[in-house]
């Protein structure tokens, strides 16, 4: 770009090309009816879309029995999680809203429209919700607003605080949900067999990310290592795991872990978590390796020239650059991990899919598969869409910063 503009005579400022303007008819002609086969395609697809939309709307508004969702909403969200401890799940959401509000204020400049829409979401949901959930949603919305307002105040230190907040958020969530112990304190222990619904799905994802990330980075470093035995071990692990389906790894974790560790009782949820972590680490390792390969040799040589040893070189010079380069790919991997947690239903856990199955077995709601699975798909879809929209923003920002 810059080379062409500098070669132009400097007197005449290069003007941007004129923007094209269309009338409605002109737009229609260019985008829908430019040639005879385009017109044909438009007509065929237009008719199909209108017919499909009409029957889908008719079904959703008149025939579908959505009460199966509203009656079981609590089950879908937290499963069998004790009612007395539900506030902990809400506390996690409130904290999340605070962190998002804070981060949005610090990093999300010039995105006021998005912030307003996102910030209004809890309040809109609160109108639909009832009782306890309505109060909790209002608190969530207020927390987000507080975070946003706080961020306007002093940004130099807040930036560090909010990064720290994100780092301790995930362990804190696990702590809050599982509790500390004791039978009936405010933070009594809630065993993992009571975790369920969307809560379990999200926890599986969080645990998967938190634990598979260091393992994946270690495997990637091992695969790039100059030590042949270490490299071989890492390559074998990565390739074997990537060559088999997740469901076989989950099954292995369910059936083999108790055999491997007799005397230790590991419950089903933890076994599933182990399977997900082992599986996801191999894929993360390959993504991180891509970042490592993108680092020029000069960086290694410069680090050596400064007298850093291997560990310091990796931790201070190579990994920060490598990880930064693959952040969008890592977010993509985490989306895949989130979707993959649905497979735990096959080994009998009550995640969002498991609850859907359980709800469909209720005698009042037999045969409502379409409603239930559409709702489940919608929940997954919203989360995945938010994550991928976030990753696209991040990618644009990282590219702009370069």
């Amino acid at each position: 770009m810059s080379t062409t503009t500098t070669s132009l005579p400097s007197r005449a400022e290069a003007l941007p090309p004129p923007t094209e303007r269309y009338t409605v008819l002109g737009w229609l002609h260019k985008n829908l009816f430019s040639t005879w086969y385009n017109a044909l395609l438009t007509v065929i697809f237009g008719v199909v879309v209108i017919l499909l939309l009409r029957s889908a709307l008719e079904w959703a508004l008149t025939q579908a029995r959505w009460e199966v969702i509203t009656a079981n909403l609590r089950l879908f969200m937290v499963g069998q999680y004790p009612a007395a401890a539900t506030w902990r799940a809400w506390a996690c959401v409130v904290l999340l809203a605070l962190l998002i509000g804070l981060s949005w204020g610090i990093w999300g400049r010039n995105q006021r429209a998005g912030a307003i829409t996102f910030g209004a979401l809890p309040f809109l949901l609160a109108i639909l919700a009832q009782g306890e959930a309505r109060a909790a949603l209002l608190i969530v919305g207020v927390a987000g607003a507080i975070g946003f307002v706080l961020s306007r105040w002093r940004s130099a230190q807040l930036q560090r605080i909010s990064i720290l907040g994100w780092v301790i958020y995930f362990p804190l969530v696990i702590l809050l949900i599982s509790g500390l112990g004791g039978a009936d304190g405010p933070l009594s222990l809630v065993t993992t067999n009571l975790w369920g619904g969307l809560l379990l799905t999200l926890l599986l994802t969080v645990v998967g990310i938190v634990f598979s990330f260091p393992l994946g980075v270690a495997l990637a470093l091992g695969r790039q290592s100059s030590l042949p035995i270490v490299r071989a071990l890492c390559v074998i692990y990565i390739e074997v795991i990537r060559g088999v389906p997740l469901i076989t790894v989950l099954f292995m974790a369910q059936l083999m872990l108790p055999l491997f560790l007799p005397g230790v009782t590991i419950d089903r949820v933890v076994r599933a978590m182990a399977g997900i972590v082992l599986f996801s680490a191999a894929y993360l390792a390959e993504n991180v390796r891509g970042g490592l390969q993108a680092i020029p040799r000069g960086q290694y040589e410069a680090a050596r020239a400064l007298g850093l040893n291997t560990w310091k070189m990796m931790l201070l010079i190579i990994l920060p650059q490598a990880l930064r380069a693959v952040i969008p790919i890592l977010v993509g991997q985490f989306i895949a991990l989130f979707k993959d947690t649905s497979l735990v239903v096959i080994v009998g856990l009550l995640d969002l899919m498991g609850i859907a199955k359980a709800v469909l077995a209720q005698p009042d709601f037999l045969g409502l598969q379409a409603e239930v699975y559409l709702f489940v798909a919608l929940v997954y879809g919203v989360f995945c869409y938010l994550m991928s929209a976030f990753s696209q923003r991040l990618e644009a920002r990282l590219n702009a910063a370069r």
Partner: protein
Amino acid sequence: MSRAFWRDDRFVQLAAQLFVLAIVAGLAFVLVQNMAASLQRQGIALGFGFLDNAAGFDIGESLIRYTNTDTFARALLVGLLNTLLVSVLGIILATVLGVIVGIARLSGNWLVNRLAWLFIELMRNVPLLVLLIFIYTAFFLKLPRARQAIRLGPIYLSNRGVAMPWGEPTETWPIYLYIIIAAVGSAVLVATGLRLWQERSGRPKPIALPALGTFATMAAVGWLVLPQPPLTITTPQIAAFNFRGGLVLTPEFMALLIGLVIYTAAFIGEVVRAGIQSVPKGQVEAARALGLNGRRTLQLVVFPQALRVIIPPLTSQYLNLTKNSSLAVAIGYPDLFAVSGTIINQTGRAVEMIAVVMGVYLSVSLLTSLLMNWYNRRVRLVER
């Protein structure tokens, strides 16, 4: 000045490696020891001898003859063939649909473009398992009974699956198979000859059409020459509760195939779009400036360059589809994983069966990557 040996880089590296190896080996030893002890307590001895025992369970659908008196090994083979069937069909159909979606995503037609985008976003943001179970329970199982089957021309849709006309092999079928093989062989010969001639003369010659023509002519002549047609077409008839005659594809198979195909097609669509967009615009303009028409520009300039970008991610999509076919267990299609699950339930041989299943998936994955890497080498850019 001689350094102490523990300061020597080579020594440190060797020691570090031996240390890691010792830890991994020690861990493996302890785990295997534990496993052996637990198995002994349960009274199970490791070994694959049980595979020769009679399976004692039925399998819903099979490509080869199978009854519940056959061995576990044969049951596994049935499962493997089912996995391969759905994977191969899935890969072919997903590629076709994916290319269509990818091209639609680049279409100048706004409606087509947006629909392709919507399709891709829908598929990418929903777990495959949800999609599969939705298609199976909310579509195929909700279809009417066989008696009230929905009719689309000669094809019937019902909760028993999809019934369609199919050819029944007759006595002359084996002979006809040889004729088909000979036809394929001559078509390949014709294509190679024409290609050599094209390279000699330096002029473009039609290759695909003559080769296809050779095949079609030989196949048609063979069909007519034989005293009895090698296939008789049977159409499905509605019997008491099910169909008789024709080919009936079970709802499990159809749900799995459709789910895998549309899910993977969305990903392949993105791969194809990225590949075509990776070819610089200047290449198309240069080709047009050289006087190539639209079709030949695509054929000789755009596709060969796009393929290089497309093949590696396409390979991983094929591998994903094959691995994802193990989700068949959630809707009751008897693939390799589902059959092995049944065997584990019957015999308690979890360790052996997991080893077998993982081994098979690994080999299939390796074979697919070898094949695609070979193809990738063929289309790769030849650099100086």
